[in-house]
């Protein structure tokens, strides 16, 4: 359960950060919704990347 929650938190937070950064960039440059979409996708990719890293090397073992 704990690992599942960790994976969820890593994945969701990366996507949320990507979306938030994109939204703010759009607000600054007035290019809505270009950056929001691009960074939301990148954030989702970063979320998968985070999850992949957990799967490959569970933390707590010797790195």
């Amino acid at each position, binding site marked *: 359960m704990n690992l599942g929650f960790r994976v969820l938190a890593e994945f*969701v*937070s990366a996507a949320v950060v990507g979306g938030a*950064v994109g939204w703010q960039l759009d607000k600054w440059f007035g290019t809505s919704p270009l950056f929001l979409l691009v960074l939301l996708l990148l954030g989702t990719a970063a979320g998968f990347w985070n999850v992949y890293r957990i799967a490959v090397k569970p933390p*707590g073992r010797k*790195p």
Partner: protein
Amino acid sequence: MAEAMDPIHQFNIEPIVKLHLFGLDASFTNASLFMLIIVLAASALMLFGTSKRSIVPSRLQSAAEMAYEFVANTVRMSAGNEGMKFFPFVFSLFLFVLFANLIGLIPYTFTVTSQIIVTFAFAALVIGLVIAYGVIRHGTHFLGLFVPSGVAPALLPFIVLIEVISFISRPISLSVRLFANMLAGHITLKVMGGFVAALLGAGAYAIIAPLPLAAIVALTAFELLVAVLQAYVFAILTCVYLNDAIHPGH
């Protein structure tokens, strides 16, 4: 009654001593009071636990020693021997979160880790330390953290962007994990408690009131596990992130 049944009411912050400094609300609240209690309790465990230093440890002394060895092993395992210079930091963080979670389980107490601003402050402190130490120790080489080796040059800009987003998301996932676990657990307990009270007042249905009561007992045990586990997870992830600052580059 409505207030007693409201599962969110327990997270209200109420000022005990009102204090306004330079236009800022610096009141001494119930959250501050419990932080003070947590610090005193954690200090008391270590001070009284290590005051006798007998060969055959008392219960308190072995509790203090076990906490020390547990965290020391965690730090050594995930950040190497070099990571031991951060041991005081990780140990304080672990004890504070552990005591905050455990004390919060006692009825009528306030859980400081169920406030996202508290957990986020810790997470920001951890990431701030990682960045500061990484830059001081490695200078611009610290940025190598964002450039994994063995990536095709065409893909590099994307990978770097993804790594940066993944790095920024760390303080958020670190803080939300602890906060959400505590918040959800305490709301569940309170809702179950509300069921008991509501069923008792519902005439013939009072006969099934023991069911949610039994659920509370089971959930309290589960929350005890979550409280310790989340403190451990917070400490171990701190070590993993510090390890990145000590050895950047994959």
